[in-house]
């Protein structure tokens, strides 16, 4: 009798919890694309815990790396010195090219792209679930990180901020299926939208799909895809990746896969682009 009562009690509890969660999820879904109060509260509450655990994990990793690196430090040093010499030469070359480009731009009367104001942040946690591609950063509202801000790395675009706490921010990577970014093929100026929706176990699991590119558009394997700036999130001209596959697709559009330039699994620091609040600046040619 007592056992039956216990089972009934637990079933009532199960039904109650299921209904409660269904209501909570429905509420968030109904709220549209914005961040719900529940999501913000939970994220704010738990971000210090995440930071603490991540700090401990990073401490252990750093100690291990320090020990390993000590053995190779001499070789690395020599290699780095050589690299610095090479980069210095390259820098001189680039400076010369940049001043030449500035001069030409001035002559042609083209508008100069505004320099981006950014906030440097460290990655605290990476995605721990197979369904999403996200990162948590150690900078939040207090450092000036805003919702929908673009997150970039030296290699290219990573994603956008989808939740902000006082000292942490959650980033949705381009590889996430919910993501989307306006892009343009640098060579042919063909525009489209990229998002991540390749299956978890597929060969090109990290590739992005470029959508809405007409079947007759000029896109070939190896083309560089850059942000178009039309989505009002990512500034124009940032590298997104390189076209890996171009197929005929079904219907009117091509099937294009883009290998992202930025590798979120291999970086530790990122840059968050500060939101200016104004509309994106378009080139004169676009106007």
């Amino acid at each position, binding site marked *: 009798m007592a056992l039956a009562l216990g089972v009934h009690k637990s079933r009532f509890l199960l039904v109650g919890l299921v209904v409660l969660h269904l209501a909570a999820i429905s509420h968030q879904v109904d709220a549209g694309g914005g961040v719900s109060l529940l999501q913000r509260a939970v994220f704010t509450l738990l971000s210090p815990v995440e930071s603490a655990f991540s700090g401990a994990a990073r401490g252990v990793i750093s100690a291990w790396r320090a020990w390993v690196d000590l053995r190779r430090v001499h070789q690395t040093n020599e290699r780095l010195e050589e690299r610095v010499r090479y980069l210095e030469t390259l820098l001189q070359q680039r400076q010369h090219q940049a001043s030449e480009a500035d001069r030409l731009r001035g002559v042609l009367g083209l508008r100069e792209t505004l320099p981006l104001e950014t906030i440097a942040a460290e990655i605290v946690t990476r995605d721990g679930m197979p*369904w999403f591609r*996200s990162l948590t950063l150690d900078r939040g509202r207090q450092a000036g990180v805003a919702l929908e801000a673009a997150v970039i790395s030296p290699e290219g675009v990573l994603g956008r901020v989808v939740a902000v706490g006082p000292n942490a921010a959650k980033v949705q990577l381009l590889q996430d299926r919910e993501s989307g970014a306006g892009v343009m093929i640098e060579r042919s100026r063909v525009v489209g939208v990229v998002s991540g929706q390749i299956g978890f176990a597929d060969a090109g699991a990290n590739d992005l799909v470029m959508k809405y590119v007409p079947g007759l558009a000029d896109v070939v394997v190896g083309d560089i895809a850059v942000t178009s700036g039309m989505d009002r999130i990512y500034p124009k001209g940032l590298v997104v990746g390189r076209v890996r596959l171009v197929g005929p697709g079904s219907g009117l559009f091509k099937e294009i896969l883009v290998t992202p330039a930025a590798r979120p699994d291999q970086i530790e620091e990122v840059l968050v682009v500060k939101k200016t609040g104004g509309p994106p600046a378009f080139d004169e040619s676009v106007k």
Partner: protein
Amino acid sequence: MKLLLTGVALLMALVVATALGQLLPGLGRIVDPFLLVVVYCALRGGETQGMITGLAAGWVQDAQFAGPVLGISPLTKIVVGFTVGLAGKHFLLAGLGARTLVLLAAAAADTLLFQWLAAVFDVRVLDLGPLGLLWRATVNAGLGVAIFELVDRRLPREGHA
């Protein structure tokens, strides 16, 4: 005591998930230490405990790793915890083979239920596919069996995870 040990187990799951994400991101997406805690607690403590552990584990996991909508992981893990706990009361699931089967089924159910709920609520998630599902279930079952054996040796038979 049960509550404290469950809390410690969940904290350890959080540490493992965070460390895996930093060290081996690929494996971090497959191994679900929270699921292992839920299954173990459900097997040892029954459906109510499995459910409550699932609730706590799911919320911690969702808060740290989930996408734009919170609540799918807790809901999934509540159901998995309840079902495993109920099964543990009615069947003898202490053997190695039985535990492997339970873990395989729990990991598969967790994945399928999550994807189904995401589809119902129109939350777009990456599709694991049959191969990903099988791989995730196998890795978690293998790890779970080994960890359960280790924990069993440390804890008294009538105790709790």
